[in-house]
């Protein structure tokens, strides 16, 4: 397999944007082209677009060729829109990586976008219900906040995690988000403020939840040969895996405080790329809710099972702790435009490795990063590993 690098990265401001879906696509496109001025658009042979629900939110389908038109890309090798709900963005990176690694593509544009704030806001929110099994869980009002509230309740019940520890995740991510000019929320918060914010679904308050967000982000991926021509600061893709244990509906979820598929995915990824959890400098993880990040500490192997609450309380996930988790502010600060989030995580890794972030959230000397995207009610877990160092060999661990 060929080595693949990210050679360009661009992002839009995330938030409640006075911008259409198409405007967001064009903004992210311009941002990534500006990031890599010596790239000739004619060199791009492939395009992958992460978009979760454009049909529901902007009533548009067949979006990949629309992006090609908006950005002036002539695709000659591979084009697709990728959809795995909240992880549609990382999926787009994955297929671009594979297309280049196998030799089909040389240079691919990867763009993730979601326009979630519309004049029909209750329709937007109701559209999260069909991420779970619409017929059997959706009909019970099972959107994302109640599901993650149940996971939080069980984690508190099974392991003694506290609401204060949940709030501490938001405090950390809000602090880093305050140094991220692209984030939806750039204000620091306190534990008290999180606990006092409006109740969404107990034990989760508004500040325990990521937001409904508009935003887009884009990357240019290239083969090793092309990467050398295009940049001096490539970010190498070491590997990536996705795990789901034949689970989509509540009955197949087992214990909600155990994310077994993530545990297995992490083990698989670390073995594939030859690292251990302790080698990871930066972890961009899917903190769609505060409880998610706590469970992720455990299942990614940063601490023992059940000790995720203690891990944040002791500051181990801050820059300077055992591993810098979400130094860009995570989903909690950036907001969560579904198709863009996975790309935003990779964008953050690129900016960190290049040292192009404010010093307050810079992880100095970082060499290895992972990105974790989850989708649905945490049934499906998506992981990728990135490095400043070129991988020895890419064999997918076989």
């Amino acid at each position: 397999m060929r080595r693949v690098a990210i050679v360009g990265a661009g992002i839009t401001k995330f938030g409640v944007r006075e911008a259409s879906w198409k405007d967001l696509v064009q903004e992210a496109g311009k941002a990534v082209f500006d990031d890599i001025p010596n790239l000739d658009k004619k060199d791009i042979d492939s395009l992958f677009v992460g978009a979760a629900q454009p049909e529901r939110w902007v009533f548009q389908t067949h979006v990949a060729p629309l992006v090609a038109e908006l950005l002036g890309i002539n695709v000659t090798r591979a084009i697709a829109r990728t959809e795995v709900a909240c992880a549609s963005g990382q999926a787009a990176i994955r297929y671009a990586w594979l297309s280049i690694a196998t030799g089909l593509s040389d240079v691919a544009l990867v763009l993730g976008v979601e326009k979630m704030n519309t004049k029909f806001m209750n329709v937007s929110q109701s559209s999260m219900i069909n991420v779970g099994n619409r017929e059997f869980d959706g009909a019970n009002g099972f959107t994302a906040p109640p599901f993650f509230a149940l996971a939080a309740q069980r984690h508190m019940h099974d392991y003694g995690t506290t609401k204060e520890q949940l709030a501490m995740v938001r405090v950390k991510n809000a602090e880093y988000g305050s140094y991220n000019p692209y984030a939806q929320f750039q204000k620091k918060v306190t534990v008290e403020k999180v606990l006092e914010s409006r109740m969404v679904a107990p034990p989760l308050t508004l500040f325990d939840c990521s937001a409904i967000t508009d935003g887009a982000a884009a990357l240019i991926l290239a083969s090793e040969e092309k990467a050398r021509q295009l940049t001096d600061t490539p970010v190498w893709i070491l590997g990536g895996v996705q795990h789901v244990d034949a689970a989509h509906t509540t009955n197949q979820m087992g214990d909600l405080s155990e994310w077994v598929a993530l545990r297995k995915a992490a083990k698989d990824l670390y073995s594939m790329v030859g690292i251990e959890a302790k080698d990871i400098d930066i972890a961009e993880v899917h903190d769609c809710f505060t409880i998610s990040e706590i469970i992720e500490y455990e299942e990614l192997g940063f601490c023992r099972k059940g000790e995720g609450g203690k891990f944040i309380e002791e500051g181990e996930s801050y820059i300077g702790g055992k591993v810098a988790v979400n130094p860009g502010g995570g989903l909690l600060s950036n907001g969560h435009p579904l198709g863009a989030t996975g790309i935003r995580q990779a964008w953050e890794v690129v900016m960190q490795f290049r040292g192009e972030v404010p010093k307050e959230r810079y992880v100095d000397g970082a060499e290895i990063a992972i990105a974790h995207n989850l989708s649905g009610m945490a049934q499906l877990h998506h992981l990728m590993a990135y490095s400043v160092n070129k991988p020895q060999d890419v064999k997918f661990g076989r």
Partner: protein
Amino acid sequence: MALRELRKLRKLELPDTVPLSPILDLWDQQEPSGPDATGIYDFYRNLADGELTTTECKGCGKLLFPPVIICPYCNGNDMEWVRIPEEGELYAFTELKLGAPIIVENYAPFVIAIARFGNYPENGVQLSGMMFDVRYEDLKIGDKVKWDILEIVGPGDKARYWYYFKKV
């Protein structure tokens, strides 16, 4: 001056109102035949008869929920409809206060729970369900609950049925 005042423009007249989009109705797949047919129609017919049921695979004996026409474990297609035990145990619960689905937002806040019926996971099921006339503060993990039948009224005349949980 606006164009419409300068020239008599051709008009495209649209209906005054557009009905609630079917994508927002969560209980639409309950037909035995026609374009909305579902192979698990017996699940809905049994609900109408007052029974919450699911499929058990006769080939491998696996109890399956949601009900399906083909067993995901052994590919067998010989299914038996079995009744889900009426009494279960509350595994987790919350109360949806903000962001309820549009079609049931009049009921918010309402409790959403997961309960386990039978011997889960070996030979039982874990179901989500709504709870009414009870508040979050009144419940605790391990409480006994029962399923009961919920009648869905409207939109339109068709009688539809679902289930919900109630505290024992």
